[in-house]
């Protein structure tokens, strides 16, 4: 009977997990998706607790309480810290998978019931679990800037890393052949832990979002392997959903950054090419606030292009005020969202949503680009690479071929940034030198605030 309940709750949980993700296809149903996910997880846990092998709930209770106590504060972090929270979470997920695999190995070793299939599954689980553990910790450290974010490289780095992984795999194969050779087990664990660290060392902090998506996939695959170890299908379905999600997000990010996929899989990326910045001093045109306000007031269609700088400056609330001021004057204002603007997928959307900007005003790149020639003012706020026309025109540019928002096609462009420094890709941006571009130098939050003050001041003058 207990068996029936467990199985029924697992099947139901699988269905709910699928709906949970499916409902994320629209903001209207997305919160229902979270509900479905919670219910599915609950069913999974309760179904498992019916298992007759569970003899005591004491330590389970301890674990659940500790987890809850840790989880609640972790969910309260600032939105800017979401990437490092996610990374930390992956570390926990990897750890759990690694520990369960380890426990099972030694239990079955004692009981003499280690089959080759079981050992194979355990080895995969443990390698994936422990490399996700240390890799994610490193990623979280770099994002939080506890660990230096710049890529650390040395000669033959890829070779060293690859050898470590191959060594771990070889140990695994031997262990499958001779399951009783238990001293190999800790060797595999240590190699995996080490590999996780070394994998992240050469990758720059700014490239962490792609890495995090991949680690998400690895955590999912570790859960799948655990499912093979424990002969548990819920672990497999949920883990596979997770694995495909991480994988697809990584691919989307790569495409939007015009990186090849192998480039990601082998972790050999993130070396910021600062060298490409040409230092021939061309002329920027600066605008005064008053100029900008005047042009804005006379526009009928304004497109705001936010980027990483907007996120760093936390300028989204000021931007909202600007939006209000402009719409009050009957000006049509849209936000143009590039898929990799900022530092994680969907970064701009979350920040602008936080500032209560209705999501139907956030227009995707492909939908806004055909409109750009009709646009009176494109207001670029802390965005750089995602509006760099070199991606369209300059075959030699490292970002050539990356799809961009065609801000340069608007009738006038204002760009808010602090300096003449390049963005993530480390390259100059022709957009800033164009005839119809005016620079508004300064912090995104401050400048936007000034614009708002100027606009509202004028409003009260009337």
């Amino acid at each position, binding site marked *: 009977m207990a068996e029936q309940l467990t199985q029924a709750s697992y099947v139901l949980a699988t269905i709910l997990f699928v709906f*949970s*993700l499916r409902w994320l*296809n629209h903001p209207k149903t*997305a*919160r229902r998706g979270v509900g479905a996910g919670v219910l599915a*997880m609950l069913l*999974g846990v309760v179904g*498992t*607790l019916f298992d007759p092998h569970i*003899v*005591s709930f004491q*330590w389970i209770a*301890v*674990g659940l309480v*500790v*987890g*809850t106590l*840790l*989880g*609640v504060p*972790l969910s309260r972090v600032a939105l800017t810290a979401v990437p490092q929270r*996610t990374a930390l979470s992956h570390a*926990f997920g990897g750890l*759990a*998978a690694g*520990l*369960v695999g*380890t*426990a099972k190995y030694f*239990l079955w070793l*004692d009981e003499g019931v280690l089959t080759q*299939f079981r050992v194979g599954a355990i080895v995969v689980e443990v390698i994936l679990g422990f490399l996700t553990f240390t890799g994610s910790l490193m990623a979280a450290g770099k994002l939080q800037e506890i660990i230096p974010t710049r890529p650390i490289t040395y000669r033959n780095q890829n070779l060293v890393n690859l050898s470590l992984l191959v060594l771990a795999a070889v140990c695994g194969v031997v262990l499958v052949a001779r399951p009783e050779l238990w001293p190999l087990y800790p060797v595999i664990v240590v190699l995996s832990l080490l590999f996780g660290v070394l994998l992240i060392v050469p990758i720059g902090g700014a490239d962490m979002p792609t890495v995090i998506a991949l680690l*998400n996939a690895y*955590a*999912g695959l570790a*859960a*799948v392997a*655990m*499912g*093979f170890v*424990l*002969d*548990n299908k*819920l*672990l497999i379905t949920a*883990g*596979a*959903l997770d*694995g495909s999600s*991480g994988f*697809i*997000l990584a691919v*989307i990010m790569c495409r939007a950054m015009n990186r090849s996929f192998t480039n990601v899989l082998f972790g050999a990326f993130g070396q910021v090419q600062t060298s490409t910045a040409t230092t021939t001093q061309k002329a920027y045109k600066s605008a005064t606030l008053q100029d900008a306000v005047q042009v804005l007031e006379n526009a009928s269609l304004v497109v705001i292009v936010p980027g990483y700088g907007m996120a760093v400056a936390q300028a989204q609330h000021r931007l909202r005020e600007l939006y209000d001021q402009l719409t009050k004057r009957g000006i049509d204002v849209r936000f143009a969202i590039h*898929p990799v603007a900022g530092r994680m997928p*969907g970064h701009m*959307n979350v920040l602008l*949503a936080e500032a*209560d*900007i209705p*999501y139907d005003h956030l227009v995707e790149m492909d939908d806004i680009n055909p409109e750009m020639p009709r646009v009176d003012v494109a207001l670029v706020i802390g965005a750089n690479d995602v509006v760099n026309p070199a991606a369209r025109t300059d075959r030699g540019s490292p970002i050539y071929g990356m799809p961009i928002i065609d801000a340069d096609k608007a009738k006038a462009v204002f760009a808010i940034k602090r300096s003449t420094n390049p963005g993530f890709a480390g390259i100059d941006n022709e957009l800033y030198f164009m005839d119809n571009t005016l620079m508004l130098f300064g912090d995104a939050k401050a400048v936007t605030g000034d614009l708002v003050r100027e606009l509202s001041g004028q409003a009260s003058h009337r």
Partner: protein
Amino acid sequence: MEMGIEAWSLLLVFVLATFIGFDVIRNVSRLLHTPLMSLTNAISAIAIVGSLLIAGEQKTTFTTVLGTVAVAASMTNIVSGFLITDRMLKMFRKPGERK
């Protein structure tokens, strides 16, 4: 390494679930990619299922300790993952709907 019928069945389930995963994720709105990352993060905490079994079996002190740590780690992900996803999604206003 011979695979029993049951192992093949697990493999089939994995293949099918991966197909579903790819289809479903591809349809997730771009708007929601950040919440998607934290939701799948919460879902990957399904590893709690294995952790519960180890912690509850209480076969040896060693495995019970590992199991309990694993339960705590997974539970952390469940709680923080779902809560933060919901927190983010709450911010997405319907068109026309303002606070």
